[in-house]
């Protein structure tokens, strides 16, 4: 419908080329450019770059530090994806159902999204602090001193605590998408079901959930990708610690590559991470798309 065949291509080129040029130049070219370094022992500074073949990748396979970072990444990502979506959906249903102040509630739940990753890390770091933090202060004044924790220093809790910050910051975003999806369900269908005597639970599982499956797909996709790429909060709150407790793959790539003088190895970690994201995402798309109902 854009015209004759010969013109179509020109039009297509004209429409697409600005975006394609930016995308190629500032994402694809540097990404491909960095691939080379994953085959070197480059320290990031020296003008002499030694090619070492697959040595970095071999090291990854045996490296306990990489294994630990992979495990942390999986834990954090699963935690974030599940809770972000569960809480976002609950909030969306709630905001959809309240009969007053709908816009106010929607805005309030969305406010954490507006804060920068770095700053949200600062705020929670201060709140989590063992000696001066507001959480322990509240527990203390409530007489619950037994529950006081070194929230970011307790190795069993650190990752979860970081996860909570991310869920808090992200839930509002996914809520908006669920909410939009919920509101696009025509009330006729639900009313018809009500007339047929369907219970509330039945309506929810048999009508609402299938109809918002599109939102599910996009939200799980986005939260998965964002979970795998978390950086700011870790950087600000724990710097990957204590020990290696909160070191994720992105953080490992950053730390080893830029801070500890092993750019080659860091890049190889990044490449592996990219492959993991691509594979997971493809699998997830296949799985979720299958369950989706076209609206």
């Amino acid at each position, binding site marked *: 419908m854009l015209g004759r065949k010969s013109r179509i291509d020109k039009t297509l080129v004209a429409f697409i080329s600005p975006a394609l040029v930016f995308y190629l130049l500032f994402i694809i070219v540097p990404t491909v450019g960095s691939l080379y370094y994953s085959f070197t*022992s480059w320290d*990031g*500074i020296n003008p002499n770059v030694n090619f070492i073949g697959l040595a970095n990748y071999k090291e990854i396979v045996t490296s306990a*530090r990489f294994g630990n970072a992979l495990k942390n990444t999986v834990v954090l990502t699963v935690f974030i994806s599940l809770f972000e979506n569960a809480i976002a959906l609950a909030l969306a249903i709630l905001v959809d159902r309240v009969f007053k102040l709908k816009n106010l509630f929607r805005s309030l739940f969305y406010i954490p999204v507006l804060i920068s990753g770095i700053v949200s890390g600062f705020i929670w770091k201060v709140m989590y602090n*063992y000696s001066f933090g507001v959480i322990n202060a509240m527990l203390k004044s409530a007489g619950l001193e037994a529950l006081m924790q*070194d929230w*970011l220093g307790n*190795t069993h809790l650190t990752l979860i605590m970081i996860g909570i910050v991310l869920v808090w910051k992200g839930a509002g975003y996914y809520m908006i998408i669920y909410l939009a999806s919920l509101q696009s369900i025509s009330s006729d269908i639900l009313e018809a079901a009500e007339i047929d005597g369907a219970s509330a639970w039945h309506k929810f599982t048999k009508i609402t959930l299938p109809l918002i499956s599109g939102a599910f797909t996009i939200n799980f996709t986005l939260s998965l990708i964002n979970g795998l790429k978390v950086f700011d909060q870790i950087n600000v709150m724990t710097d990957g610690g204590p020990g290696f407790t909160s070191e994720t793959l992105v953080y490992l790539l950053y730390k080893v590559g830029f801070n*500890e003088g092993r750019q080659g190895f860091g890049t190889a970690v990044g490449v592996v991470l990219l492959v993991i994201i691509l594979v997971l995402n493809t699998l997830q798309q296949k799985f979720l798309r299958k369950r989706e109902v076209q609206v």
Partner: protein
Amino acid sequence: MKKAIALLLMASIVLMSSFAGGSQEDVVAADSSATTVTFVFADGDAGAKESINEIVNRFNSSHEGMRVEIQPGNGGNYTEFVRTKDSVGEFPDVVEMRGEAAMYIRAGKLAPLPAELTDLFLSPMVIDGNVYTVALAGENTNGIIYNKAYFDEHGLTEPQSYDEFIELCQTIEDLGDMDPLVVGGGDLWHLGFLFNKCWDDQVISLDPDFIAHCYSGEKDFSDPSVKAAIEELVQIMAYAQTGWASTPDAQITTFLVNDMAAMMYSGTHMFTQILSADPDFELGWFAIPSPDGKVRLVGGSGISGLAVSTECQSDPAKWEVAIEFLKFFYAPENYGIYCDTLSAIPATKDAPVSNGLPVLQEVITATGEADSLSPMWNSKSGINELPPDFRNFTYKTAVEVLLGQRTIDSACEELNKTWAVAASSFNPVTGQGIN
């Protein structure tokens, strides 16, 4: 249609380039006749930032035709900041180097400094016969900084041996008013102060070239001395406050001045910080003796300090400004500002007169009387230089032991594994990885 797109792109490019131009304009406009050198330093500390700014201003106003332009690192990620500058070819003319100095020297980015400058210093670090960095201050001498009022109140005295120190910690713990020791373990480099003490006590005391012997394969990290060092660390850290693992260095002053902890183990830069948080705080200082009775202190000059780039060296006019500036910087009347603000121990022979903090004088005396005075284990060069990522790995592994995630034996094993990988691409003993 194509025209419109082209116009759009053109417009955006013009818009951008106008800003691109804008940012360079005022650099040139500042003083077009002067030879300008750029100067980058880590301004993680407000005091350091202010005092260095002051010295630079003095230089610029007293040296016609010469100009030093500061490009602050804005605190935060200084290492990445310098790396970025380097990777885009904007490596500064005069630059503060920290632990990564050796890498830059190997990469040929730093120029050997002339004798007229290096002769000003007590013990500049020599690498292959050249001096590449001049220390901003003597290596930060660590020791116990304590609450003197509290010590006096309870009749506590400075320990004369390592065992007495542990007893002292136990006494304070038993008193129950406050934690014996505050540790900012959230910052690895802070934990490094204590680690280095244990390392010196147990490892370096037996073999000053332990790291070199690891490179040559004669020793490894399963050595009893390494285990002893970690054991000592565990013993001392038992007296640290709850929450040490997440406490940043920036917060430990608060513990001390609010009577939440009696002691901290840190460098002299803390004196000014503590006094600015509480001007009435009574500072006390002592060195923790080693278990063998000797006193080993961190001191002298390490590899970190100010350096000049080789690129600057290739331009004689700039080189002259850079060297002139450094000589000016370390002249007693200017350098004194820096040392006073940071309670730093001067690194120059013609040392500026100190502002008279008695406790600093005590430290300087102690460094003079110490049985050994050496840089931090990660600030050494030559055959004892650590592989690039080894320091942090060691500290993190030590934290794992302290938090009960790992036994000392498995920590040593991990260190061995990482060492093997690291030393295969960097080994100053065999020359591997050093061009």
